[in-house]
């Protein structure tokens, strides 16, 4: 069994008062709780902090933890002889288990010794996990394999962390932040209680062309100056394959051209839209002939793109 320094995780001395342990936990929970923290590693850190506090906030568990001794974090160790019996679990067996499961085992051991022993109904644990998929996968629907280490009870009702692989079908309708519930795919319920659920949080990999807002997609549409002025029929990529888009004459930069129902499918069977955002692109290198034509255009045109400057800024004179 690997040692975990619960005091170190909470940043308190081994002699810390219960109130100081609570304060340290609250401070770290505020910092790392996955529902309030923007730290991408917050969830992992919070799990450590919550595990440490779960043991140290309880005087009995804290005493049992202190009796284990003190080792460098991660070092293999064995609890002293009779440690389990001393703390209420005569069937205690340390084996190759996680320290958190050891303390959960102590609590379970006391329940086993209590009235109604062995028949307590306990719903299975819910699991939550993030699946990051490509935009194309969200469009078509996809299968993902999720590898989780989850706590499970053995035949004696003891908790062990075991690796499990979940194969999950993500149907069409996914977008960033969308949640799926897979009923009964969480931990097993005890003594006939219901199994837990698996909650899947969908995240999308950034796409080189499309940007996502809900189920709508945005695409930059570069246009040559003459295409913007004269109008054009251009081919644009969509997740369902290329389509032709009619660019109307006098299209200006930033204008959004909507391709109805070419966005991501929604769970209710509808579809989001694809918006092509016009960008006027000037050729990097022009030939002599092209420059000559631009010069003729400059001479013939009365267009002043900065005409509004004079109207908006009042002269001092």
């Amino acid at each position: 069994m690997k040692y975990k320094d619960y005091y170190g995780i909470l940043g308190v001395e081994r002699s810390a008062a219960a109130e100081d342990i609570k304060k340290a936990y609250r401070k770290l929970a505020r910092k790392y709780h996955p529902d309030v923290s923007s730290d991408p590693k917050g969830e992992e850190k919070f799990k450590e902090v919550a595990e440490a506090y779960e043991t140290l906030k309880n005087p009995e568990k804290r005493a049992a933890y202190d009796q284990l001794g003190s080792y460098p974090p991660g070092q293999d160790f064995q609890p002293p002889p009779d440690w389990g019996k001393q703390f209420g679990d005569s069937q205690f067996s340390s084996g190759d288990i996680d320290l958190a499961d050891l303390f959960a085992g102590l609590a379970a051991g006391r329940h086993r010794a209590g009235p109604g022993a062995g028949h307590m109904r306990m719903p299975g644990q819910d699991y939550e996990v993030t699946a990051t998929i490509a935009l194309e996968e969200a469009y078509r629907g996809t299968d993902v394999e999720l590898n989780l280490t989850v706590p499970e009870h053995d035949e004696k009702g003891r908790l062990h962390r075991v690796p499990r692989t979940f194969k999950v079908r993500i149907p069409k309708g996914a977008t960033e932040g969308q949640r799926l519930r897979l009923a009964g795919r969480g931990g097993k319920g005890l003594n006939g209680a219901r199994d837990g659920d698996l909650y899947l949080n969908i995240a999308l990999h950034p796409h080189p062309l499309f940007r996502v807002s809900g189920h709508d997609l945005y695409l930059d549409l570069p246009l040559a100056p003459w295409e913007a002025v004269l109008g054009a029929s251009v081919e644009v990529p969509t997740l369902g394959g290329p389509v032709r888009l009619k660019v109307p004459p006098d299209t200006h930069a930033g204008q959004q051209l909507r391709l109805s129902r070419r966005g991501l499918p929604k769970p209710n069977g509808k579809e989001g839209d694809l918006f092509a955002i016009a960008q006027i692109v000037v050729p990097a290198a022009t030939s002599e002939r092209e420059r000559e034509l631009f010069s003729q255009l400059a001479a013939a045109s009365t267009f002043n793109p900065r005409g509004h400057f004079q109207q908006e800024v009042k002269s001092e004179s």
Partner: protein
Amino acid sequence: MKAEPAEAVWLTEDHEFALAELAELSGWSEAELRELVDYGAVTPLNPDSSPWVFSGKCLLTVRTACRLRISFDLDPHGAALMVALLDRIHDLEAQLGSLRAQLPRHTR
């Protein structure tokens, strides 16, 4: 061990849960869920009739509220206030994300 592919349900406005089901899945009792409704954390789809029915999104909200209650030792009112503020933050983040998506890539 590999499990067979499991069917999944999107937790959106299109999926509905009865009050009793919401209680079973969220970690709150029905009485506590009624408190959360009183405090405005979630609103039933049919507030004036019985039994109450909630959208799939409400399950996410009340599960979050339950996690916060346990982690920060909150009462239902404190948890309701916290999820209301988190909802506002998520709405603002979604609006920001939408505006960013509309900016041409080279100006983002």
